[in-house]
């Protein structure tokens, strides 16, 4: 039996994901209709993990592209390469996903150049086609193909945003940090620490999140808490782990850094 061309992109094991609300049902409904999905939410709240989990749950390969400001349309679609026989067309990740049927996840899509997102347009409406003008091919998307993009609307310093013509093609799913109990369960599972310490870390995160819009672009993410938890497992005290994994990366402003460090100090018994 021939192997699927995207076999390497399948997830072997079930990724850990704790559903927050009805996002599983929404995504499955969108997938059934092959509607493109837009995930919005703060950094480190579980967007990427959610996509991995859904790919595993749906049994589809997942091709992830981390977008950056030099990402061009040909980086997504593909390009001609030179080899001994002359030129050879190499599918880009988007073309691969559309050709062979996979979930294509464009992480932080607004970071990509504006012209890049335009190539998504014919793929994300009823046409579901990808014109490969460079190799004169009109690619009709595989029935299993689905596009998922994510971005963080609160990200400061961002110079770009999605054009209405792009964003109106997507079904939106809004993410935020899970509730305290659920977030503690996630931190306990992923960081492999006990529930008490996980809850303490979540409380610290909630304190930093109060400073959003008051000096911080974002409060501590769930990912940061998992890092802090992992550091405690390696022998650091919770206070030291929070300073290294949360306080230090959150801000360069000396006053804000002092305030965060003092808040962490206050959160743990000495």
């Amino acid at each position, binding site marked *: 039996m021939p192997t699927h061309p995207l076999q390497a992109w399948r997830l072997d094991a079930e990724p850990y994901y704790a559903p927050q609300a009805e996002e599983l049902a929404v995504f499955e409904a969108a997938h059934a209709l092959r509607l493109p999905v837009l995930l919005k939410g703060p950094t480190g709240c579980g967007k990427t993990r959610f996509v991995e989990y859904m790919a595993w749950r749906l049994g589809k390969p997942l091709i992830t592209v981390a977008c950056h400001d030099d990402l061009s349309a040909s980086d997504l679609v593909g390009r001609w390469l030179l080899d001994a026989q002359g030129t050879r067309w190499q599918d880009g990740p988007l073309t691969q996903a559309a050709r062979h049927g996979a979930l294509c996840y464009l992480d932080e899509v607004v970071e990509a150049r504006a012209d890049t997102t335009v190539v998504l347009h014919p793929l994300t409406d009823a046409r579901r086609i990808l014109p490969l003008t460079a190799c004169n091919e009109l690619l009709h998307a595989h029935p299993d193909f689905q596009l998922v993009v994510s971005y963080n609307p609160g990200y*400061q*310093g961002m110079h770009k945003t999605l054009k209405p013509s792009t964003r109106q093609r997507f079904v939106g799913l809004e993410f935020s940090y899970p509730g305290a109990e659920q977030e503690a369960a996630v931190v306990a599972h992923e960081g492999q620490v006990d529930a008490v310490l996980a809850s303490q870390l979540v409380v610290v995160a909630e304190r930093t999140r109060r400073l959003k*819009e008051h*000096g911080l672009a974002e409060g501590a993410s769930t990912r940061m808490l998992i890092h802090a938890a992992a550091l405690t497992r390696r022998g650091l005290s919770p206070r030291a782990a929070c300073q290294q994994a949360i306080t230090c990366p959150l801000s360069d402003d000396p006053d804000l850094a002092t305030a965060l460090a003092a808040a962490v100090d*206050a959160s743990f018994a000495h």
Partner: protein
Amino acid sequence: MLPSLTSALANRPASAEANGGETQPAARHLPPYVRALWNVAPHFARLASPAAQGESESIAADAARRQRPVLITHSAVVPTPMLYLPVHWQQPLLLRAAVAHACAHLAYGDVPQPRGKLKPIQLALVGTLEDARVEARAIAELPGLRALWLPWHQADAQSGNTFEALLQRVQRSLLDPLYSDPHPWVRKACALYHAALPTPEGMRQAASLLGNDVGQMRMPFNARLYVAEPVYRDDNTHLWGADPQAPPATTPLSAPSNPQEGQSQGDSNHSAPQPIEQQVESAAGRPTAVYGEWDRLISRMRPKWCQLYEEDAPNGTPQARQALSLALARHAALLARLKRVLQTGLPLSQAHVVAGRAAEGERFHLNALVHAATDQRLRRQPDPHIYLHPLRAPQPMHVLVLLDASVSTLRPAALPSSTESGGTLLEVLRESALLTAAALEHAGHWCAVQAFASNTRQLVRVQRIKGFADQADSACTLARLAGVQGEWSTRLGAALRHACFQLRGHPRPHVLLLTDGQPHDVDVHDSRYLPADLQHAVQEARRGGIAVSCLNVLGNDKASLDEHRAMQRALGVHACRAVRALGDLPHQLLACLAR
């Protein structure tokens, strides 16, 4: 210090308030600290040092030692809680302990209670037990706070058996789980505290019982000389409702450290609060544009909130023009350095242009390559033009310099070069704008200059000084720049939104703010409102692909530095640069524009 200060403090004018940016440097981290801990945001202000009152040194030192923070939680005048910290306190840990304690009152305290018939001893006892109660609640939630407060509790059996010493021993016993006091009354106080309901009412009942004991023990107590101990604890006046019978307070509170814009400097003790809406002189015609404004309290944009009028700047007097020309000549060496720095550090970016095929080049023209390969297989002579044409189009920046022309720019400048020319910040700002425009033009970039000032949200004025097509050293530019006068206030958000509107569609757009401090306007009394709006305007601009940076020309007063930090918070540390002398201009300008 038991007499209530509340009524006297409540009558303080709004002008005596100050936010975190105006407190001592060691206290700057405290507003975000308490917001993180309890999501409370009191206004911070300074309690004047007693040494300033002309008393003898020893009396002043004693008064300074006895000074305690003052917390006002409920005031008829100021809706936000106020926390006054002694201005001579510089130890970060003392300030942090004091602020954490006071904010524990905010987080877990109750509304002010009537004193009823409580005697001074009972008032002191209620304060002590209530302090212990809120600290216990705080420690239950934030266990690390115990280590913050404990070092200030040193009382023990050696401290004596006076009422004040016993109170301190009670405080330590209630806070320190490892300390056990042998005094029976202290033990009884602790037992009553633990048995009482953990509410202000429970504390009041326990204090009544303990107060009777103290009376029966005939322990002397001088209410006039009593101060709350340890030193970090506030004077607890906020526990009690306003008492019309109380004697007037003698504790002076400081005036704000920097006079607000919109007032003359000699007006800093002006006690009447500013009217909410000032009568604005009617501007001619309809506004050029109306912009929204971010209201941090409701976390929403207020739509169509600021009326902006754009006009040509008036021509300055011949003397002013002459002074500006002379300044330009005087700074010739600086201008040459600035031009050199910008030309090398800020080159025109080269936009990649697919300009056809070439026989030589660095990058393949892929289609040409395919055609060549096809020709080869068809045994035809391939076209040798298989490379991208090496042409690239230069892409200059479009920089709009926004010059702050508010009244605060009439302050004396700290810059050595400006003292020769009269010495106001406005003159330094004008010269900086002129030099910047000239250097940018020389480096091949486009630069426009506009000045702005505001008089309430109904009148934000933007004056055109130099368009992109005008020459920086032209007579017209010099005349208009000389005509800019410092007046009114600084509503930066609206001016920035207008600048971004004008830059739409221009390649490599950049707004450079030339200012002397943070935004302010006379119809805004919340010192964080306009900086929050500015932060939002900056984010909007950056989302739209427009870079925003700021050169902050610092005055020779401490307030300038505080305002600079506030601006850095709004724009980001790297996008907001301080200029202390015109010599700083080249590298700071480059740092702003090359981002």
